[in-house]
């Protein structure tokens, strides 16, 4: 693992010197700000049951994860493969696992950085809102914790998609679809008539546990369920292992 930090440092540096990162970050924050403003308007008109932070995370989980994560990760492996630099990289004493983890680490770092920057929106709210109830620190901490934990899996899926495709656009679409299935899939699947049969009860239970929005609700209510943590950690590990295997399998059939 001695090369992990070399690659991680390199990848983060490359992200930070790349103008594309700043453009993406600016767009991300602009849209975040717009939606946040809209949300506050709704709250200023009439009282709501939940705190704005809660709705904020709900909305952005759908938007920011599904759109931003594939855009952030689409380049990571596929660009190296397209340029051929994956070959030079893997002919140094570096293992595929180190390469994948290094790239994953850098993408996750950027993901946290982007989400972290949305903290500014809440600071503004805190600074100017007269009603202290609008800003519930518990919800905020839970929400951000959830973002950090679930981000592990979402970013891993993005890197996985990038490892499978040579073309960045294909990687982005693949990541988009995979995340869509993960985030909305269980909820939609639960509505399928066939699953209502008694014999499918275990499937329904499993799908119920995999509901991403349910996890968010729990986290922002302050419930940190080890089952949820387990879901994301094992999911991340599995996806990363598949990514490493995917990169290696592609080399075999070069």
């Amino acid at each position, binding site marked *: 693992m*001695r*090369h992990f930090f*070399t*690659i991680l440092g*390199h990848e983060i540096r*490359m992200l930070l*010197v*790349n103008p594309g990162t700043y453009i993406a970050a600016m767009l991300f924050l602009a849209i975040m700000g717009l939606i946040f403003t809209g949300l506050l308007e709704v709250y200023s008109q009439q009282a709501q049951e939940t705190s704005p932070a809660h709705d904020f995370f709900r909305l952005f989980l759908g938007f920011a994860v599904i759109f931003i994560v594939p855009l952030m990760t689409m380049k990571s492996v596929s660009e190296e493969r397209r*340029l*051929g*630099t994956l*070959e*030079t*990289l*893997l*002919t*140094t*004493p*570096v*293992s595929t696992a180190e390469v994948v983890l290094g790239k994953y680490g850098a993408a996750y770092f950027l993901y946290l950085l982007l989400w972290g920057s949305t903290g500014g929106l809440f600071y503004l709210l805190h600074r100017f809102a007269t009603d202290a109830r609008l800003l519930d620190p518990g919800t905020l901490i839970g929400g951000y914790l959830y973002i950090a934990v679930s981000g592990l899996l979402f970013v891993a899926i993005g890197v996985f998609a990038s490892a499978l495709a040579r073309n960045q656009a294909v990687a982005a679409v693949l990541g988009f679809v995979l995340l869509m299935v993960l985030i909305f899939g269980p909820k939609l699947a639960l509505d399928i008539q066939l699953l209502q049969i008694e014999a499918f009860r275990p499937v329904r239970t499993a799908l119920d546990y995999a509901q991403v929005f349910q996890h968010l609700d729990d986290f922002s209510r302050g419930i940190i369920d080890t089952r949820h943590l387990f879901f994301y950690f094992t999911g991340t590990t599995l996806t990363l292992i598949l990514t490493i295997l995917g990169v290696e399998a592609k*080399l*075999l*059939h*070069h």
Partner: protein
Amino acid sequence: MPTADPETAPLTIEVEHLVKTYGGIAAVNDVSFTVRRGEIVGLLGPNGAGKSTTMRILTGFLPATSGIVRICGIPVASRTDEAKRHIGYMPENNPLPEDMRINEYLYYRGRLKEMPREKLHARLDEVLELCDLKRIRHRIIGKLSKGMRQRVGIAEAILGEPEVIIMDEPTIGLDPHQILIVRDLIGGLRGRMSVIISSHILPEIEVTCDRVLIINGGRFVAQGTPAELRREVLGRTHYELEIAGDVAALPAMLAGVDTALAVQMTSGPDDAGFHAVILTTTSDRELGESLLAALTAKSYRVRALSRTHPTLEDVFLAATRRSWDIVDAPAKREAGRPSSEVR
């Protein structure tokens, strides 16, 4: 020309019965060869002959289907990471990241090659100097010319001072001046490192390499120094004469010089009465002097006499045209003897 003594220099690359198949089609078919420290070996072959595949297997980037590859005695298949530490590799088309500066890139690569920081800085300066990149080391790689990129690739390959350097078409797409620079660079490695280069540019290989391996259809069709290859594959030497006199009496006279010498072609007399004659022989001996003596003794007037050197190009074409099965036997011979005939 070779400075490495083939008898004593340690083997740095050993390849035994290497086979690589892609979906049932053999890209490399039972290839065996060895390279000693300090040798520069050229890998020659038409497109799709298996050059790049062989090189990729040597670097541990691709696994072989069967066979053994050892780099400095370390089997690549089972101890890949260890073997990779002894190799500097420059792939085909020399892929480089577009958005890094030269010195940043080389520093990053040095770290990946596990060079300690203090040593790396000194070595970096040395390599930049060697490859004439010092002035442009802050330039962004994506904006470099082809020749500069190629030099960056070579700098990267020699950065870690590996025992074995593998370069896939290092001179492709360069202008003659840049080719000269790259050739000098590679020539400068002679004696210290083992170098395998592949190329399409035959004179390049001929000038730079101590030994040439010709590969076609995944098998070696010929192997040896450029001079040996000429003899082995073409099997004969040509002499070109321009003489005036009785051309019909020439064959009888030639038998007195060398029994194997024969007239291949005679052209009619030109305005001055001179015939252009091409003689051919299977003999290795230098016949020029005795031929000249015999001709003047028989009162022929000689305007020109030259021994034609078949180029490596001729050898290459002849070797790849021939069925590989016939040539497989001589190809297995250990070659690499010093030769005075290398141009």
